[in-house]
């Protein structure tokens, strides 16, 4: 909910934008003036939450107090999921791995994570995978990053998902590089179910990493 703390920018924008019949401009100004007052949670978010959809607690690693909650809104025929937050950020997910983000400022347009996902599910001690990311630049000049990644099992770790549920997980590192950019994703994969219950995943150099932990009710 506080992911978009853009105080100064909004204030300066409000000064420039003034008042208007355009609700878009007005809401920007209200946000600027209201500071950190909570925003009305998004209706789709509330509906999915009330329907008992699975959720994540999420936090941006390079921003202080940038936490929110995501719930799963829908799954398409290809098993690609769309998750949304109360302030209407969204994530495209495939079995716990991020394949898209929207609203973070420097987003992932789409990603192909199939090989890493298979390696995590197989649970071998080490694997080499390819991980493709297309950033969302807004331009037609689409660039795509192809990373070569080392997926290695590090340790066995308990992850507390709720007061009375502790998941027994293997921690994996996915260390990726493409010559210009390096990043390391962390995945805590529950033994047995092979489900990713906690992770820290890289989005972009500017946005940094997003930490996700499954909510167990």
């Amino acid at each position: 909910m506080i992911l978009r703390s853009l105080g100064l920018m909004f204030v300066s924008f409000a000064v420039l934008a003034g008042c208007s019949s355009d609700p878009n401009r007005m809401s920007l100004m209200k946000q600027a003036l209201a500071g950190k007052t909570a925003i009305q949670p998004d209706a789709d978010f509330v509906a999915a939450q009330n329907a008992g959809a699975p959720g994540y607690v999420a936090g941006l690693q390079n921003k202080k107090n940038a936490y929110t909650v995501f719930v799963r809104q829908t799954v398409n025929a290809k098993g690609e999921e769309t998750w949304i937050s109360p302030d209407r950020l969204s994530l495209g997910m495939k079995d716990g791995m991020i394949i898209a983000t929207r609203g973070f400022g420097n987003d992932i347009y789409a990603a192909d994570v199939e090989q890493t996902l298979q390696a995590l599910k197989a649970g071998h001690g080490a694997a080499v995978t390819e991980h493709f990311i297309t950033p969302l630049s807004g331009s037609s000049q689409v660039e795509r990053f192809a990373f070569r990644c080392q997926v290695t099992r590090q340790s066995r770790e308990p992850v507390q998902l709720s007061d009375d549920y502790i998941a027994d997980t293997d921690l994996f590192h996915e260390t990726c590089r493409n010559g210009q950019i390096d990043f390391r994703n962390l995945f805590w994969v529950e033994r047995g179910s092979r489900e990713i219950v906690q992770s820290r995943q890289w989005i972009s150099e500017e946005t940094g990493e997003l930490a996700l932990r499954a909510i167990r009710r």
Partner: protein
Amino acid sequence: MHIRQLFTNVCSFACCAMAPAFAQDVSLGVPTSSFGTPGLIDMPTGEVFSDGTLKTTTVFHGGTQKYNLSFQISPRIFGAFRYSIIDDYEVTGATRYDRSFDLGYLLAEETALRPSIVVALRDFGGTGLYGSEYVAATKHFMDDRLALTAGIGWGRLGSYGSFDNPLGAVSDVFDTRGDGPSDITEVGRLETDQWFRGDAALFGGLAYQVNKNLSFKLEYSSDAYEAEVTRTGFERKTPINAALSYGFKNGTELSVYALHGSEVGFMANFPINPAKPAYVSGIEEAPPALMPRRTAAALSWGGDLHSKTSPLFAALEAQGITLEGVSVEGATATVRIANGRYPAEAQALGRTARVLANNLPEDVTTFRVENTLNGITTSRITLRRSDLEELEYDLDGSWRTFVRAKIEDAPETEATTVAGVYPKFEWRITPYLEPSLFDPDDPVRADFGIQAAGSITPARGLVFAGAIRQPLIGNLDTSTRPSNSILQHVRSDAPEYAKQSDLEIKYLTAEYFFRPGKNVFGRVTAGYLETMYGGVSSELLWMPAHGSLALGAEINYAKQRDFDQLFGFQDYDVVTGHASVYYDFGGGYLGQVDVGRYLAGDYGATFTLDREFDNGFRVGAFFTLTDVPFDDFGEGSFDKGIRINIPIDWLTGSATKGGYGTTIRPLLRDGGARLDVRNRLYELVRGSRTNELEDRWGKFWR
């Protein structure tokens, strides 16, 4: 002698510095000269900035101030505009206020063996205060930490340690340099009889990156500072200048330098990369998720689609999109939309497509979306529902959706109108800032105030709009220089408008937009068209849905408004108009030529070249040549300027249409002045045509 001295210096420094080992990953910027162009201190280098770099450079030393704005127009071409203030420079002892332009070209890029080479003109269209030409070569060493430069200069850059022009071997014309402007009215012309002519001199120097933040520059200057020495008492004790610069992570650089052993100068430069806004992909809300298909029953389908109460209307409205018309026939749905929010039409289109998919029954498989401009249709884009479903999270989804979309002209709507959309009302109260630059008495003047603007659109295509302004504080009305123009004062009385007005009508118009035929758009505007003119303006634009060429014709009757900017008019009126050719060269380069009659009754043409980045940030330059003789035009000789437009969403990251634009003219005079009517068609239509949709198609899935 001086040359040898220089190279001794260069060598001794380079050799000392060669020893220590350095980290490899230092990112090196191209050093900036006190002229805002790639260079050391006063001397240029053979480098260029990275493509698209826009940079302001401010310089102070002794009684001199220089304000530079430079732009890397293309990977090889750079340009700069400069405003300089030099105390005591005039023969009379008065301060000199000077505007100048530079243009440079990268002849060769650096290779393992060869230096990069730049040829450039400095101050080619001003008073010639800094008038010079050069060829400079730069080669990097020591993991690019050390850059050595050597070059040859003419004009001011050939004024110290000079020798006969080697180009004299090619032709005798190079031996003698032209005189330059003899009085103020000759200023502004291209002094081609000076270029690369007269004595030449060598210059050189080095830039050394000490660490990530700190760099050092040393140069041997071929500029004798002749006029400064004679008139301002400047002391030129040595040809050597040296600078120390501190660079910040965002590219800002602060420098202190020693100039010719007698003065200390300060320089600050701020680069902007227009291609990289802070929030590249925007911070607006995520788009609607694409939901699984549902049956008509599950959607409770069958209510009145043509009312503002339909779920489809509400779902689009939540995205900032107004549903103006809709028809569903068999498997095809056609909608007419007004995009009130997204600067990129592709984004409005992508969101509309997903809303349609989520709100129309499963057997509707084709979506046709009509874009509008004040209610009239522009383009129709056909999308298949199955493509949306297939490509939602596809790694190449952007490009694939684009090639599968069919884009065509939409001279008429094929969607049935939703009742109650019209009339539309809009209003806005905003602050405004109106600057006026380069008056020698006060180089920066501005008014700050509040503006109220509103519009009523009673029916498709018809808009009544107005804006009033109330200046609150400012000094635009303090100008004491009456226009000395011998032409009709069509623009040069600008200070009178500021002096004699208080609450003012910025514009008050009735506009009608229409589609006379396929690929053709029309506009008629009547009323108080702009600050200084009222009348009637009419325009036709031919712009196909695909292709790079557009043609326009505009004819206006304009009558000069009273200085109080209320309802009255002055005696002067004129019929003015232009035929225009617009061409999209690709890569973001947009060219425009307007040929016709200007406000003072002069005939001529305006040439404009803009570079527009995919995100809408735009930098351009223009000049106008008319049958007004240069002498009659007055200072500057002809109208010219540069313009910059920064979209709101570039600054804030939020999806909001509009932007902040400014045009910088060295001088605003009466020749080559065009009517400033609002809503010329090309800019309105362009966003929904194929080229522009393609440029911003990356936003379709945003």
